[in-house]
């Protein structure tokens, strides 16, 4: 009897100790945020980014040395500026969320910078390329890990001029994203001076019918059609170009670097040019590690072009919170001194405007239904020719 009693007491004490130990191990919960286009024409990029940020949080939570337990709050900006301002207000107004990785669409990112500044909410942009996002104001809250569109368009103008093309027609969407591309591409092309722009056409981001613009372009007969905009209208323009019998080269930007572009066009996608800053995911310093861990989680969608940057942004946020604690002001302070921090996309340094410098530009051409780097393609070696290529 006494023995049973002793056993029971011992068992109870062990249970209590175990609970207490478990309690000691329970970490404080910290909320971090992610905003991206989860619905709409560019949803695959947003979902890829979300999965990547989610991966960063999951890996961190699995790490027993982490000080906090992280919860990811995800909001959808639908790639629309007004929705973005609403969800940004919602996230920034919630005092429990410490920091966030935000925005793929430049139109949304530029609309929300003032909101984040108003609420003192630190963010790191992972996919939007418009320079104004970090350079228009000097907001301590806004940072960016991916590059801007300036270098992209320099490389673009360079390639077009070197291939010997003389006339370019520009189609761009009327959001700040498309207008930015138009501005930087025109400047770059004018500086090189070999080709000239014969016409510029602004289209709305949801436009269906481009026969009007394309008919006018057909009359101008350019060698190249430059497109500054996103995948949904890129697909429509390319397909309607074919319907009108226009045989120019379709030269686009990072906005169409997405599998959705190839799926939407099938064989028509062949020979499209595209550019993006940074290397393809596999060639990044941490690329293999990222892809391994990503595939292990068995997400429904691939990380797409900017998934690695979303991971890097979220990882940096988590590192900073680990270092200074879940306090927005301290996070902002710390992100003001980022020099040569390691990440899967290479060493990150934020300049005085919070912008990381990504020097490398990758040039793509679509060959056989895949994005192939220009230098490795059969177009560069001469086995295949773009329309009008000499």
């Amino acid at each position, binding site marked *: 009897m006494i023995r049973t009693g002793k056993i029971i007491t011992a068992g109870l004490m062990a249970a209590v100790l175990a609970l207490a130990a478990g309690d000691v191990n329970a970490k404080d919960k910290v909320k971090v945020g992610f905003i991206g286009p989860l619905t709409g024409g560019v949803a695959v990029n947003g979902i890829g980014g979300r999965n990547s940020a989610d991966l960063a949080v999951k890996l961190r939570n699995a790490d027993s040395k982490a000080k906090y337990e992280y919860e990811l709050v995800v909001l959808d900006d639908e790639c629309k*500026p007004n929705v973005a*301002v609403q969800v940004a*207000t919602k996230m920034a107004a*919630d005092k429990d969320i410490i920091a966030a990785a935000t925005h793929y669409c430049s139109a949304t990112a*530029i609309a929300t910078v*003032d909101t984040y500044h*108003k609420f003192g909410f630190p963010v790191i942009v992972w996919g939007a390329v418009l320079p104004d996002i970090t350079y228009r104001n000097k907001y301590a809250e806004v940072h960016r890990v991916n590059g801007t569109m300036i270098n992209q368009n320099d490389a673009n103008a360079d390639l077009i001029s070197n291939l010997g093309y003389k006339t370019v027609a520009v189609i761009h969407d009327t959001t700040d994203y498309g207008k930015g591309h138009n501005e930087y591409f025109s400047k770059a092309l004018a500086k090189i001076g070999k080709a000239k722009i014969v016409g510029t056409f602004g289209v*709305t981001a949801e436009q269906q019918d481009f026969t009007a613009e394309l008919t006018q372009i057909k009359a101008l007969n350019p060698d190249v059609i430059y497109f500054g905009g996103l995948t949904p209208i890129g697909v429509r323009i390319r397909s309607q170009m074919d319907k009108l019998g226009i045989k120019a080269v379709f030269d686009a930007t990072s906005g169409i670097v997405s599998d959705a572009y190839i799926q939407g066009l099938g064989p028509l996608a062949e020979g499209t040019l595209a550019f993006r800053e940074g290397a393809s995911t596999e060639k990044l310093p941490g690329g293999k590690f990222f892809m391994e861990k990503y595939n292990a989680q068995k997400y429904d969608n691939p990380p797409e072009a900017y998934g690695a940057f979303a991971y890097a942004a979220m990882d940096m946020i988590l590192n900073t919170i680990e270092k200074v604690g879940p306090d927005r002001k301290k996070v902002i302070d710390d992100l003001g001194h980022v020099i040569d921090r390691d990440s899967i996309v290479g060493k990150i340094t934020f300049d005085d405007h919070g912008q990381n410098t990504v020097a490398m530009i990758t040039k793509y051409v679509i060959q056989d239904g895949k994005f192939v780097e220009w230098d490795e393609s059969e177009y560069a070696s001469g086995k295949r020719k773009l329309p009008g290529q000499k």
Partner: protein
Amino acid sequence: MAEGAAKGENARAPLWPGLAALAAATVYLVALLAAENQALIISLLAAGIAAVLTAAWLRLLDRASHSFMDHEDALGGFAVLAALSVAVFFHEDHFVLLLVITVLLYTVATLGLNIQFGYAGVLNFAGASFFGIGAYTSAVLNAHTAIPHLVVLAIGGVLAALIGSLLLLPVLRTRGHYAAVVTIAFALLFKTFLEVNDVLGGPQGMQVPGMKIFGWTFNDNIEIGSISLSFYMNYYVVSLLLLVGAFVVVRRLERSWIGLNLDALRLDETAASCFGLDVVRWKITAFLIGNFIIGIAGALFGMVGSFVAPNNYTFADSLILVSILLLGGIGNPWGLIVATVIVVVVPEKLQTIQEYRFLLYALLVIAVLLFRPEGLLPRPIRRYFPGWRP
């Protein structure tokens, strides 16, 4: 004897049923706004619906509505107190305050729509466009001129009325479906015009500087001793004042000879003109006053949200305003408040159904139209003699 009997017939309903209903509604609203847990919210909503149905069955709602009819001014004062107490309860919570401000300003806009549609029978499917005119006015004037912001509100209203007067000729000459198409065409035209127009920011929209009255900057948080209030409190007070003003104006209008003329006009245009009513003049009055009120609400809302973009003022948004009118009961200002709360607050709170909210919301309106076309709080019969009860 006769006097006694007359007194008995015209005895005023007691104040307390209305007061009790108001208090219950306020407590419920606060609970709903404070709840974060999805399961809790769903059970709150179910409980609310059950409570309302039970009250209707027990004839408690009738007593409350009689009480409102007889003591409207007093209960109006109590309603303002209730609104202030909601604000005090949430004084630090940015997002809840923003939500309530949205309710207040949407109610003002629908009050304007109510004059046009509920009293005069003039169809207006472009309510959100006039709201947008007000918002864009405050965006442009706040950013580029030094006009005092209260005056900007008034200018917003005047501009909405002026632009609405462009539509006067078609609106006056058409009936029924044809009248509908005029305002629908305008709603679409307005949004497209804003989108393609670079001067007004295009699809990217514009930032709106915050309100400043007599040197008091609205966009800074307020600190009173150790209590810190969200900066939205400033806007809350102004919106509440605006709502009270608009409500009083609309009520007085309804009971005045102007309202009588408008009602006659709506019920039977031919008979009204037979009796010498100037149909054209009254329609113009209703349309312009309505747009004026909508414009002021829009101007204030632009400053609250500090961002305007064409996508906020589409035909779908105009439909939401019309549906609030229908749901609440055409012509009944109290019903509008209830309907606005349902339409604005419930989808925000039920995050799990965020994606489905337009669908569920449209189904709800269809159900209301099929089974209770008068709306939740139908407009009572006009009281021709003070104190008279049907």
